[in-house]
């Protein structure tokens, strides 16, 4: 993987855990945040975090999506700002967890919430800072106008580029020289941004945004925090991150089959991916390799059959025969639940020319699954198109062809002499998929 979003909670926790190393005592951050998940025993929270009973609170979902204020998902007032008690927050969270919500067109359930003290502050103390990465430089965005209006005030945001080879003195100088003029305590703000940037760089952040950033004297309140880490740096700075989670973000709930494959993938050294796009679709794919799987999906769409594309997925990295069998069975199970009103369903068993993978061996797992599902495949009406190349492909193609014919399942097989995606065109044309 690479850049991955982290929860606001984890972002602030990482900030707090490394605070002394980067900010010393020159800045003060009183980290008070609780992450509430479906597993949290809400009645125990006040024991571990007594402050929830002592201060007015803010509660909000912590699931990577933004614009929570505009979505009405930041709970900070009943009648007036700052009158939310722990009991109120608890009830609100329970209620929000129970109802289905729609975020950016995706329906699902809210599961993770952040509860923090409500910080009353002056609008004029709200700043903005964000840091992101470019090719040869990092980019810092600074503004005296933080909060939800930052986008409307984007012209007031100062953008500075820090070359990745810059020395500490150079970094400091670039920041100091570019601090927006309307920031009250420019020196303090510059110092804070400089140190935050150092943390950003050392801890392999890919993106970091604090908005609003409230600064009162040397007290810092990062009221909202958005962060992405480069997860490949785990080996280098994992200790400084602590126990960080890389959630998938708000999305539709996984189907049991997708969950099953995901769990298998996590346990395996091989890569096994499955996403159901349209369970009633006619075209199902079993593709080896990440690049090839994209190309097959592209081609189905580019040839005008995207509505019938049932799934996206791939298997690669030398899965065992059992893993392949289980993966294929899952797809077979899904595709044989009902007949398609317009004709046979199509199964694309595709792949590019393998480097060193023994093609015949990988087909064994597919053949195993085919034997188990032969009756169902025939009942549903499934036609198979195969295309693959690489070591031992002739044997593999012969085996899968013979197995399908013996079972009475229609099949066409092709090797590297046929263009990789030609079977998609054939399948669409021959079966009049439109």
């Amino acid at each position: 993987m690479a850049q991955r979003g982290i929860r606001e909670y984890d972002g602030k926790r990482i900030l707090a855990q490394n605070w002394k190393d980067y900010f010393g005592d020159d800045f003060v951050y009183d980290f008070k945040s609780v992450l509430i998940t479906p597993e949290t025993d809400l009645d125990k929270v006040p024991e571990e975090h007594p402050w929830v009973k002592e201060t007015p609170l803010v509660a909000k979902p912590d699931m990577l999506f933004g614009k929570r204020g505009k979505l009405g998902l930041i709970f900070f007032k009943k009648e007036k700002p700052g009158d939310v008690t722990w009991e109120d927050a608890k009830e609100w969270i329970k209620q929000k967890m129970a109802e289905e919500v729609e975020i950016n067109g995706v329906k699902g359930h809210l599961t993770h919430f952040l509860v923090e003290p409500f910080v009353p502050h002056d609008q004029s103390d709200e700043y903005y800072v964000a840091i992101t990465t470019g090719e040869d430089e990092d980019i810092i965005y600074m503004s005296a106008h933080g909060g939800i209006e930052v986008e409307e005030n984007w012209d007031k945001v100062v953008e500075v580029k820090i070359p990745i080879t810059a020395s500490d003195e150079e970094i400091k100088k670039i920041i100091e020289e570019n601090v927006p003029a309307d920031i009250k305590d420019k020196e303090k703000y510059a110092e804070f941004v400089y140190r935050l940037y150092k943390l950003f760089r050392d801890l392999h952040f890919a993106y970091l945004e604090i908005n609003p950033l409230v600064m009162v004297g040397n007290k810092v309140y990062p009221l909202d925090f958005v962060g992405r880490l480069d997860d490949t740096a785990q080996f280098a700075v994992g200790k400084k991150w602590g126990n960080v989670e890389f959630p998938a973000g708000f999305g539709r709930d996984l189907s049991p089959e997708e969950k099953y494959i995901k769990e298998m993938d996590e346990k395996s050294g091989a890569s096994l991916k499955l996403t159901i796009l349209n369970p009633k679709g006619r075209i199902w794919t079993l593709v080896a390799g990440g690049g090839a799987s994209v190309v097959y999906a592209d081609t189905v769409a580019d040839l005008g059959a995207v509505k019938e594309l049932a799934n996206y997925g791939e298997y690669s990295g030398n899965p065992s025969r059992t893993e392949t069998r289980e993966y294929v069975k899952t797809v077979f199970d899904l595709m044989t639940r009902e007949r398609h009103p317009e004709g046979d369903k199509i199964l694309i068993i595709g792949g590019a020319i393998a480097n060193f993978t023994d093609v015949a061996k990988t087909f064994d797992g597919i053949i195993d699954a085919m034997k188990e599902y032969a009756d169902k495949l025939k009942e549903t009406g499934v036609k198979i198109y195969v295309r693959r190349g690489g070591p031992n492909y002739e044997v593999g193609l012969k085996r899968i062809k013979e197995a399908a014919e013996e079972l009475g399942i229609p099949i066409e097989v092709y090797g590297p002499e046929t263009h990789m995606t030609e079977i998609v065109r054939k399948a669409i044309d021959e079966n009049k998929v439109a």
Partner: protein
Amino acid sequence: MSKPDYLLFDRDTKAIFWNLNRNAIQRMLDYDYVVGREPSVVAIVAPTSGRKFDKFFYGTKEIMIPIYKSTPEAAKDFPEADVLLNFASFRTAYDVTMEALDIPTIRTIAITAEGIPERFARNMRIRAKELGKWLIGPATVGGIAPGAFRIANTGGTIENIINSKLHRPGSVGLVTRSGGLFNELSNVIARNANGIAEGIAIGGDRYPGTDFLDHMLRYEKNPQVKMMVMLGEVGGELEYRVAEAIKEGKITKPVIAWCIGTISKHFGGEVQFGHAGAKAGAERETADAKNQALREAGAYVPKSFNELPELIRGVYEELHARGEIPDIKEPEVPPIPEDYAKAVKAGKVRRPTNFICTISDDRGEEATYCGVPISEVVEKGYSIADVIGLLWFKKKFPEWASNFIDMVLKVVADHGPAVSGAHNTKVTARAGKDLMSSIVTGILTIGPRFGGAIDGAAKYFKMAKEKGMSPDEFVAYMKNVEKIPIPGIGHRIKSTKNPDKRVELLKNYAKEHFPSTELLDYALEVEKVTTSKKENLILNVDGTIGVLLVDMFRALGYSDEEIDELINAGAFNAFFVLGRTIGFIGHYLDEKRLDMPLYRHPTDDILYNVQCEVEQQ
């Protein structure tokens, strides 16, 4: 070193390979052999390998490639090597690259590791640019200059290399992102044009060391390249640089381009297609937007991946018809000798073996003792005696026999520090020697006079019984013909009145559990004769074990001849050796604990009687 700037590799290119990746190195040498050039890998860097060199095949011949502890050392000995193939893991690949960039003789570094942090990748990239050096990767299979140089595994098997015409230069410059579709594209180009002149996979990471344009600008200058094929991906903006360069006239040769990931527009951010780097952050980064930009810039862009071959064929045929692309005379390809291991697997060759093993097998998932997996030995509670049964006699002994063997081992395990074997062990240990040396002196003492009575008793009692000698006849025979005391008869202090408890236990056990104690019964008859002469001429523990082992094997179905073979092979003695080794180890450890000084035997314990017939000078 005199190759033009636009070439990273030619037929003389020499490489240092970081990491002892035997398969990849062998594949490079196989390629070298097929294209008829000298071996391209001149040195290997493997800091943790204890070896000075490794052997590889070049054709049928074996060659030695030196192994170094560090890249600078290798580069110092091979200044002509201007390529480093960095096969270090994602943990070390960054340090290896940064170190190699500072070595003046190294110009090109290919980095294969996936999962190098982006900040490290950016540092490597900028450093390389500053120094005017070439990075390929990270996260790539590398690339190939057909007929000249192959990076590690690029191109797959030799069969595929020949089929995709990667063994001789064609006219097409290829750049892809990841290596997964590299073979596929080479194949398409070989089938629809005349093969590639050079191909680079820049890697799937967000910040590749060099990108599409860097290589396409080289192809532009390379007269061998007549057209280019680029396979981009959804995500990032690198493809726009190519579009710009075409527009600006920096690239004038025909470019056929396609960005994969057009599917993503149908499912938005909801579905992750391909790897994480291939995610469009903005409209500009979508495959469609990039395909459109390339099309507008003047590249040949198909409507779908499926039309790519036709498009390549069209451009190729046009250039060919215009005479810009000459015909290629296909070179002869020497066959690569098949690896012995592979040929064996395929059932193509055979060879007589030098050794035979019938007791254990370590080739499967788990080693077995006579067919029984070791885990089963543990799980099913096999005793040490059961293991001895499997490994010494290839049998699962019945419980009565296993229990007997167990008793035998316990009984012979030690006999105090004074007996010669234990004494030797102690003396050796005190001389400061190690475990092996010390116990071996004890074991080497075992023979006809020390511990050998088990064998002897078994042999002579068995012989006498088989020949039908009466106990009296046997005693007389031993005295008059063999002229030795009967092995297994006699004890220093034990006697009929003061019986040896160990012997009693063994006898009682056998009486109760053995199907038959024929030879023991015979030996006890002999004992009656000998003890009538002298009270301490009893059947001793060695004798009892010897005759009972004969009874045991006979009850297990062994014939007289088979039992003789066992005795002659030392199998009976083996019980004593194994058991007593426990004691020897004990004495050795005891000495180590006590840390006694070197032993020197007191002179007053030696009778000096030196009488030599040597004349004094």
